[in-house]
């Protein structure tokens, strides 16, 4: 896997604050990765995303894009923002145009592409997010889930290699959350690396191959879900909970630990409608 982005001892502090919002963060993100970012409110997840996209310039440390150090010249920042797309938590913060098609064209137009190339990219992005029928609609008339898809299409049209999604499922109903997961899978299949900030530990457990945990501006954990959630002290310190299926798998001694209900009950074994016993008694007598 090719490295896309690397942070080395990156630190950031807001002008009006004394405390560091991010402190000595070092990590590397490669192509095709599926990473979940966990952490309680104020842990530094959004600041981390903004630093990765170049909106915030770190006070200390370095950022590398495909092995090249970012020296914060205008051209390098533009390259960074093209390669690393950021989808904001509130879709309304991102939507500025009069129609969906105009909105999705904003990014490619800023790349100074030809009109035909912009049109092609806009159509491709709208088709990928199933938004072609909404292209002449005003973004503010759309539902929450549709707006979220527009904000993803917005970035997709710039053809990034890495997409950062800041709590994309917040304020989405369950149906739209499922649709979002399907869309994330489509993006992954295109080879785009995905980093998703979320409070939903069950989603992180189910979807991510790698989990990052932030706490008080520091990256306190970086690894597979099985290792992360096995560390009780870490989970408690970070103000997190263990995923439900992880706990069920641990209680019943299931290996490998199930990530989905289907993995837990592959044949529907033990399920009896109306019966109180769904699973056999746990192996430790509980």
């Amino acid at each position: 896997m090719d490295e896309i982005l690397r942070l080395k001892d990156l630190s950031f502090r807001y002008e009006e604050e004394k405390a560091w919002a991010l402190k000595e963060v070092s990590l590397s993100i490669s192509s095709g990765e599926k990473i979940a970012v966990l952490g309680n409110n104020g842990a530094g997840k959004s600041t981390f995303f903004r630093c990765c996209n170049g909106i915030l310039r770190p006070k200390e440390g370095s950022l590398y894009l495909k092995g090249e150090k970012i020296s914060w010249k205008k051209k390098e920042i533009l390259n960074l923002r093209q390669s690393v797309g950021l989808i904001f938590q509130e879709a309304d913060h991102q939507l500025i145009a009069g129609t969906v098609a105009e909105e999705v064209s904003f990014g490619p137009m800023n790349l100074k592409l030809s009109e035909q190339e912009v049109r092609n990219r806009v159509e491709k992005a709208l088709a990928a997010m199933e938004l072609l029928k909404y292209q002449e609609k005003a973004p503010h008339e759309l539902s929450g889930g549709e707006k979220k898809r527009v904000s993803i299409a917005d970035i997709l049209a710039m053809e990034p290699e890495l997409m950062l999604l800041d709590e994309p499922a917040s304020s989405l109903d369950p149906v739209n959350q499922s649709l979002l997961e399907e869309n994330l899978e489509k993006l992954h299949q295109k080879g785009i690396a995905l980093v998703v900030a979320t409070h939903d530990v069950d989603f992180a457990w189910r979807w991510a191959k790698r989990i990052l945990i932030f706490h008080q501006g520091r990256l306190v954990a970086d690894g597979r879900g099985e290792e992360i959630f096995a560390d009780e002290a870490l989970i408690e310190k970070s103000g997190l909970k263990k995923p439900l299926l992880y706990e069920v798998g641990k209680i019943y001694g299931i290996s490998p630990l199930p990530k989905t209900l289907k993995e837990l009950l592959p044949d529907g074994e033990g399920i009896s409608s109306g019966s109180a016993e769904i699973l056999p008694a746990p192996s430790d007598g509980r």
Partner: protein
Amino acid sequence: MPRVLFCLGMMVTAVCSAHPFLGAELSVVMFLWARVYGKVPVGKYLRMFRLPLGFLALSGLVLLWEYSGVREGILSFSVGPGYLSMTRETVLRTILVTFRALGAVSALFALGMTTPVTELTGVLKRLHCPDLICSLMYLMYRYIFLMYQVHGNMKQAAEGRMGYMDYRTSLRTTAGIYGNLLAYSYRQAGANFDAMESRCFDGSVRFLSGKYRKDWRKTVILVILVLLEIGICICWRSWPAI
């Protein structure tokens, strides 16, 4: 572009008209155009006209009077060393200016109600208006609605907590809302700007313009209308000399 030039042509015709009937006639034409072509509901059009009509009425009241050293005219009041007088000339002037302004405002409203702002800025760019001005225009337009939305949310939240239950409470609530409105809108605008920067925004707001099918019939109708109005403007007897 044809639509913008048509409305501009009508505005210039209204401002240059020599008879109030022309201004009134232009208002009706622009209303019909907004209604038929732009499908603007009548109620919405009239509601939007309340503010400019009120302004025209106030301005008209001011134009009716002139100050001089002699008592003259239809009505006259002694003010200080001179007289504030309403004369036949000031009445005729007020009527002409009011209807000119009405015609021009109608043309502007018709343009605003039937043309998305992205199209307007696109036309201005094609007319070599500086990019900075077009981008600022678009952003100001966008942020007006942002502040309007924030204000609406705050007002609703206040209403839900009986913030307008009596006059005194209403005043306090209004002061609180406006005090917070700027700070909150500034933060929202900051978030909007971050989102634009994250997509390589370089100071120039650019969108892909829509694919338009050139409707030559409409363009011809617009040209005929403009020429007709200009013709009427030239041929019509001028309003009594002021």
